[in-house]
């Protein structure tokens, strides 16, 4: 019988204590223990990006971390990006630009895009494409996703006066 390990972390600004088997991945802990099912599991080997979460503000794969490794750290899931009611600017922009169809990959894209915009509020198109290159989407063809992120980046520009961008 493998022993369980107590951990203490912050998830979406909430303090969480738990005791679990070391083999539990961070993704499974978020989904099955905390019922934060917005974090999706696709490939479970780090390729698809659906399980992206923020660990101390940096985007990471939740399928490639053990939950016990998050002990003492702060995790933000897609649920933590939204205001109490409604959608945040990025989520609204995804909706407006039809940047999702089935929606399975969307949480991972939102986390990756959020991390990018935190680091660089005005990323170039190329930078946006690079930032989401680790996320797979089988529906959209990616272009609407890039447009959705780009639109938020444009709105955030101090000189944003609605002029068309070349």
């Amino acid at each position: 019988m493998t022993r369980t390990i107590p951990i203490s972390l912050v998830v979406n600004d909430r303090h969480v204590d738990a005791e679990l088997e070391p083999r539990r991945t961070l993704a499974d802990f978020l989904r099955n223990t905390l019922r934060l099912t917005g974090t999706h599991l696709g490939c479970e080997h780090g390729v698809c990006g659906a399980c992206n979460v923020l660990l101390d503000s940096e985007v990471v794969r939740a399928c490639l971390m053990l939950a016990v490794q998050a002990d003492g750290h702060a995790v933000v899931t897609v649920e933590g990006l939204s205001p109490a009611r409604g959608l945040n600017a990025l989520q609204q922009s995804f909706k407006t630009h039809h940047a999702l169809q089935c929606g399975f990959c969307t949480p991972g894209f939102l986390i990756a895009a959020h991390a990018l915009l935190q680091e660089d509020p005005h990323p170039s198109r190329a930078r946006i494409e690079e930032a989401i290159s680790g996320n797979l989407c089988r529906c959209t063809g990616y272009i609407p996703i890039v447009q959705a992120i780009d639109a938020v980046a444009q709105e955030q520009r101090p000189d944003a006066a609605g002029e068309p961008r070349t």
Partner: protein
Amino acid sequence: MKPPAFDYVRPATVDEALALRDRHGDDAVFLAGGQSLMPSMNFRLAAPGIVIDLNGIAALAGVEAHADGSLVAGAMTRHRFFETSPLIAERLPLLSRAMASVAHVAVRNRGTIGGSLCHADPSAEWPALCIACDASIVLQSSAGSRRVAADEFSLGVFTTAIAAGELLTAVAFPPWPKRRGWGFEEVSRRLGDFALVGIACVVDLDASGCCADARLVVFGAGDRPVLASRAVEALRGRRVDDGALRTAAARARADVACRSDHHASAGYRSRLVEALTHRALTHALHSAS
């Protein structure tokens, strides 16, 4: 798709980690950034009885800069640090540039130099970069520590010179000389994928603009990164023109045995070796002068 049960320990020091490894032998694995070990465990290709997590060992993280220009990088220093650090951009610009080709941001935020070297994927960037920079790999065991030249570290697919009971603790990079240029080229199916073929090189010019020395490493082509020594002989001691670059590229192609797999044929890889060698050396010459 879930790892089998194991015990988990997070030691605070290297000595503690080594003692745990000695006690548990091959039943134990060291967990660095987890970007290769965790997939193996999720697939149950690896089923260790005990995981020794190195993420709690502060002494293994970060880069130490010495006055003579050399750098010592702790094994747990993450790819993203090398990508974004101004110190690395100044002292080892080849590394900064090459990091953009290592998987994706989410992986680079966790993956480590030591983990990648120990995993020894023949298509990975780190083993080749360390050879190009003439780095030494520092291995420690409870019996002491030793250094292995980067070129003697990767022995084959997923195989290294690490002996049982040893832990890779650091990578030592010698000073980057003045008038050193660098080149890095890689072809992969998609951005962030493992390389079909990649080239990492440095070219040192003397005061008169002639090539004093050069190191060129081909990776992704065979079962380990290869130092193309005969190729760079075409450059040494002369003012390098395009003819010399073409000779070097042709020699690299002739000397590096390429593998065929479902990603690319040996013939295609060979053509890549030649084309990318030419491009990388051209970049190196421009950035040196």
